[in-house]
């Protein structure tokens, strides 16, 4: 033992009155607890050891829960409290009880249902092609390629760019007069589209940003899972005369099922919370999501109500509605997972 360890040990034993007095046990009783066979110091030591074994793991994981509590749980509950009050951004200290008014207001608001619809439709047209493209990309990358590391890095590059930078570039590409997309459409003899103001055009444009950013990310996840598939499966499939496509369909896809489910869940949550892309795509007054709210997502609507209009009570109600929607989505995912597992 070094001197510092001795000091520690001494510190520990001199503090042994602590736990005992805390539990209200009288001093001598501790000897009895040790069943009289072991002398007091070593009983203390073994107890400390057991306590250490039990408590240390909690101490190790506590930072997460402390942070989670402070920055997630408390705001979550506080938001719930806010959603039941009439709270204005300019007078936070005078909140009046509103009961379920904010929710009633919300469920009768066209803007809310419109935002929900948009969130769903943008979610579908961004998630589905994205995951299919990712699967295809991963399949391609899984072949023996020259410079495969380079390709993988390239595929991941869009994910590394910031939402803001990516969106600004897309805004220019989709600009109605000077944008490259309309120029290309013109080349093939199609009419130009006002990408920001048309209903489907704007949703497509927003989705394309999402697809561009996240496809590579999902592709790498798929690739990792594909590489874990034993090669002999493919060999025997090849012996049975299965071509590449059949191998993909009958070996790769079934083996990837858990991974696919994981990416579906993660992408769905991401799609429900979609915020940055449409906000920046909208430019100066991006929170409106276009002049007819044609690409206003729930996230945007919440931000608009809270920080632009200044109605924090209603914004909180939107936040909680979003939370409940996510819970429903999670439940549906869980059901599907279970069913899939049973059929497997």
């Amino acid at each position: 033992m070094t001197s510092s360890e001795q000091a520690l040990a001494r510190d520990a034993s001199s503090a042994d009155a602590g736990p005992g007095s805390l539990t209200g046990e009288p001093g001598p009783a501790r000897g009895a607890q040790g069943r009289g066979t072991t002398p007091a110091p070593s009983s203390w030591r073994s107890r400390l050891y057991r306590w250490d074994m039990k408590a240390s793991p909690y101490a190790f994981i506590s930072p997460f829960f402390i942070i989670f509590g402070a920055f997630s749980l408390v705001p979550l509950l506080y938001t719930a409290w806010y959603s039941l009050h009439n709270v204005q951004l300019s007078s936070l200290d005078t909140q009046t009880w509103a009961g379920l008014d904010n929710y009633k207001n919300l469920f009768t608001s066209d803007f809310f249902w419109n935002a929900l619809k948009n969130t769903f439709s943008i979610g579908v047209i961004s998630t589905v092609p994205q995951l299919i493209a990712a699967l295809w990309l991963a399949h391609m990358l899984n072949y023996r390629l020259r410079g495969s590391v380079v390709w993988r890095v390239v595929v991941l590059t869009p994910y590394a760019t910031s939402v803001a930078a990516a969106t600004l570039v897309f805004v220019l590409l989709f600009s109605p007069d000077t944008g490259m997309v309309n120029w290309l459409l013109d080349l093939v003899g199609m009419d130009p589209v006002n990408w920001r103001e048309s209903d489907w055009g704007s949703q497509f444009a927003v989705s394309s940003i999402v697809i561009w950013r996240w496809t590579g990310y999902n592709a790498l996840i798929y690739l990792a899972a594909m590489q874990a598939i034993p090669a002999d499966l493919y060999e025997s499939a090849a012996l049975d005369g299965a071509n590449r496509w059949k191998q993909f369909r009958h070996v790769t896809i079934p083996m990837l099922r858990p991974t696919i489910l994981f990416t579906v869940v993660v992408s769905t949550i991401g799609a429900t919370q979609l915020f940055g892309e449409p906000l920046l795509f909208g430019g100066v007054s991006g929170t409106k999501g276009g002049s007819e709210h044609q690409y206003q997502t729930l996230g945007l609507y919440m931000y608009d109500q809270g920080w632009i209009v200044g109605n924090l009570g209603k914004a909180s109600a939107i936040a909680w509605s979003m939370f409940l929607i996510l819970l429903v989505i999670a439940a549906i995912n869980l059901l599907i997972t279970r069913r899939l597992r049973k059929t497997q």
Partner: protein
Amino acid sequence: MRTTARTSRRATTFAVVAALATGLLAGCAADDGDSGSGSSGGSGGGGKTTLTVGTFGTFGYKQAGLYDEYMKLHKDITIKENVTTRTDVYWPKTLTRLQAGSGTDDIQAIEVGNITEAVQTQAAKFVDIGKEVDKSQWLDWKNAQATTKDGKQIALGTDVGPMAICYRKDLFEKAGLETDRTKLAKSWNGSWDKYVALGKQYMKKAPSGTKFVDSASSVYNAALGGEKERYYDKEGNVIWDKSSGVKNSWNAAMTVATSDMSAKLKQFDKPWDQGFANGTFATVACPAWMLGYIQTKAGAAGEGKWDVAAAPTAANWGGSFIGVPTASKHQKEAIALAKWLTAPEQQAKVFGEQASFPSTPSAYASLKPEAKTTKYFSDAPLTQIFSDSAKTIPVQVFGVKDQPISTAITDTGILQVEQKGKSPSQGWDAATKEVKDVLGQ
């Protein structure tokens, strides 16, 4: 041996937990320290006082070297500017900090669109700075905007946004129109409808790929800036749907939106910037502060092609205030700095740097825009045009939700007509629905 291992493991456990805990606490502490108001240096006691100035966008104080100058004059003061680029991010943040009573800067900028909200809901959180100055230095209507009903002035005017029309001389010439700025100003004097009528003329012979004006919304904003009656009446009632000012401006904007004279851009968007660079529109209603913007976006290619003429009506668009929150730990020093920054001489310097127009008339005689700017705008008498406008701008009544109502009208109502081909009445209905949502009706 085992004991040793165990003890050392326990020591490590404690060390790690302790480190994490301290880290967490330190993190919080650091957050607190971030709140701005400088160190415990105290005032005048030999140590330096750090004053923070919270602004949005470019205020030009740093650019014009005002902070350095002030620090040279006052050796015990250090000034730090906290800039938030977007107003829609800056203001909610400032509101929450004001009400929390912490995290505010020693001087806090307020945009004209938010000043009424600040006056009506946050007056208690600001120092009555009107008591500290000679109010007659400022334009009356500017002071009035920052003053509560019982006479407490919460902020000092920085710049104002007197309006003119910036136009591309070369494009006008190609379209066979008058290019002389005084004659032009006379031809549309008094009414935005005349200006819009000229637009129709322009479109008849417009150089290919160009439009008369950048957007219908900019015409709306410019016209409304000259109207006495806006969205609220003096008693604070919302009258936006009955207001004659809104009606006039809306009609002018509708003429633009339903014709082909608009480039259909959204102001301050990237494509708008590109419009300046590519010269896709011939005119834009330009408050003084926009001159610098045009210069940067249109670039060297636009030099000498732009000119400035007086607007149809004297109108104001934009302009800001600075106030000292009561939460400031160095109120005395902050008030002194705010006074100095908004004094006529300093406002004149900021104008020289980036053409933010002073709110103090006594500065007008000595105004000298940067030579580069004058040259850029074909040697137009900028100071005269803008000061003539500034002196005759009517006192306008603002309301708490001016900003969101305006956005609803321009970005929903006008945009639907301009970009989606809806009829003006459909656009009006959509705007109505939006405004009702904003007002919680």
